[in-house]
């Protein structure tokens, strides 16, 4: 079966678990590094970012005083999640990622061609997620502390990223809660943030429809998770000498990562935007040029036979894995 399809099934399962798991009393905690929105009532686990921003909004003395232990436990949980699954959260678990994939499927079903970034535009937007990450740490800190002697920010700034995260209005919709689709006129800050949220939600829906994984390029969670790109248990390796630089992997990559095709001398291919969806491995026609690894061992490798099968061409005779002598890795 195509990895793509397996992935969709896993994603759907995780989506149901994360959005409805609470009904059956499941919960995998509040430090899950994926956009399982905390505003969804029946969630079975919640997004790391909301509590994180709450923690950051404590006065510093409290944060490193009374709450240091819970905070460390909380960060540790996040670290473990990240270490074990890493970016696989994005490709296989994230409900928001799943929504984007569904939009892509809908587009494909309708037969509308997708859009791609120009290389320059893509690079131009790459800093956005880091900026968002910095803001979602700094703004809450500005609520609990007076940063550099500036006056404290008002409570309206609380959990700033959640206030503009498309997950907030969209994911609760699945448990029938439309109460986050609104504009709040109570203060200029609220007005601005909620309007921005509505705008970004619109952008999310249209962007996700037109371009694969549109939002993930800006997601601060991805920026956080890329801490584990090198050390995470799940990896993506490339065998440069087998690669013909045919560009199949780049074209199929939902994150439009060019390095995957163009870089030959690099072994670790989990780049800052990679969501470990393994699509590239699936469409690579060269034996063992790309492999998905678990703890360093290849679990799924590219192969010509597999490629042809997934492309819907069943070879009448099996093409063996060739070369037979895999003396180099």
């Amino acid at each position: 079966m195509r990895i793509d399809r397996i992935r969709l099934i896993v994603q759907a399962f995780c989506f149901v678990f994360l959005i409805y798991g609470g009904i059956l009393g499941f919960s995998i905690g509040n430090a899950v590094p994926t956009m399982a929105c905390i505003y969804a009532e029946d969630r079975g686990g919640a997004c790391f970012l909301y509590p994180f921003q709450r923690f950051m909004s404590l006065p510093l003395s409290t944060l490193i005083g009374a709450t240091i232990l819970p905070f460390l436990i909380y960060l540790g949980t996040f670290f473990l999640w990240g270490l074990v699954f890493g970016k696989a959260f994005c490709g296989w678990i994230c409900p928001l990622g799943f929504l984007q994939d569904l939009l892509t499927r809908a587009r494909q079903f309708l037969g509308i061609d997708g859009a791609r970034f120009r290389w320059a535009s893509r690079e131009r937007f790459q800093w956005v997620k880091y900026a968002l990450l910095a803001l979602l740490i700094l703004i809450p800190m500005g609520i609990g502390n007076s940063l550099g002697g500036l006056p404290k920010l008002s409570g309206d700034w609380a959990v700033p990223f959640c206030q503009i995260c498309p997950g907030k209005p969209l994911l609760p919709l699945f448990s029938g809660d439309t109460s986050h689709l609104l504009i709040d006129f109570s203060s200029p800050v609220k007005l601005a943030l909620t309007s921005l949220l509505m705008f970004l939600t619109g952008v999310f829906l249209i962007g996700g429809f037109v371009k694969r994984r549109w939002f993930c390029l800006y997601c601060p969670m991805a920026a956080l998770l890329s801490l584990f790109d090198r050390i995470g248990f799940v990896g993506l390796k490339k065998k440069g000498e087998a690669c013909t630089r045919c560009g199949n992997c780049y074209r199929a990559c939902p994150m439009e990562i060019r390095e995957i095709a163009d870089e030959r001398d690099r072994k670790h291919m989990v780049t800052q935007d990679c969501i470990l969806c393994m699509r590239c491995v699936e469409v690579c026609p060269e034996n063992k040029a790309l492999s998905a690894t678990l703890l360093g061992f290849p679990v799924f490798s590219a192969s010509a036979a597999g490629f042809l099968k997934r492309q819907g061409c069943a070879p009448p005779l099996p093409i063996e894995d060739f070369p037979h002598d895999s003396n180099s890795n």
Partner: protein
Amino acid sequence: MIKRTRYLKGILCCLYIFLIAPLAAADPGYLWLEAGPQMRRMGGGDSEGAMQSGNTNSGMAHGRPVAGPNAPPRPASHARQVSADGHGASDTQSKSPPEKRAAMSHPAHYTLRLGWPAAASASCETLLTAEASILRPDGSAQKLIPHLETPEAVRIRDAALIQGRYVISASFDQTTGDTHYRLFTQATMRNTGEKPQRHPLPDQKDIHTRVPRFLIEDLSPDPGKNFARVHRKYTGDKLPVRLLLSEAPVANQPVTLTTASGWRQTLTTDEKGEATFALIKESFHDNEINKRPVTYFVTSEIRRPAHSRQGPRGEVLRSTLALLVYPSPLDWESRSAGLYALFLAMAAIGVVTAIRRRQRKRPCA
């Protein structure tokens, strides 16, 4: 505007204290329960008891918060965190013994108050003789002994460790002159905590000594098992109540809703003893949006003539239901605007994308 009402209130208070109170020293007014400081925490359960100035969770987008900040329980820092969010009562640290409790759960902690709705009230030492009890979700009931926590506050407290709905009632008797006043009140609260274990409990019906009990019951539907959300009363909501006298509904009895600023509405109960109020809007907002709740009171009074010459000449039964009412978020937020904004954004971006794609469409001459 606010200032003027405050002056007015002040003058009324003075009038009350210096003129009316001595004259009418006889009448103690009503009894009600006001949420104590330990309940005024962020994300606290919804106490339908009186809470003069509960925090408003301004951190949430529109004052309707979900879970508490966090899974790890942080009993000590809660109050501080509230202040970190902008509003709130940083002075509400309590010195209660630490208890192991789930996130978002809190003890039942109430101040007993005596006085007149929307006018003046006090929590004086005389209230130490009041009788209070709590009915827990697992079916157990217990008497709560009022104690003097601060010189001005007589309070009752229960750890309330079990998940579910608690009913706290209190009663107070006073005889002045020739009238015997019997005052009752009831409050409900919801809490997270451990799941109740259902085992048979001894029948504890006799914990109330003051009979007949006259109660106003809040009949609002139970919001369900989900404690992640706080369920509150907002202006515009309906408030169904039932009057019970010794567990029997009281028909054709006038019952009055008093808003925080003194506006009143009186209904008469039907044959089932029920009446339904609409929580009309108060003047919450001034120049800026105020998301804090105010207390509304539902009161009822039964006057009984004297039975005989020996006993007190008359008996007055009074009951109160004090509840916090939040300004409806509809005052400052608009879903239709949100939807319009969303669709507009989608349409605009969609059109721009379509046009750009058309322009970019590669020339295929």
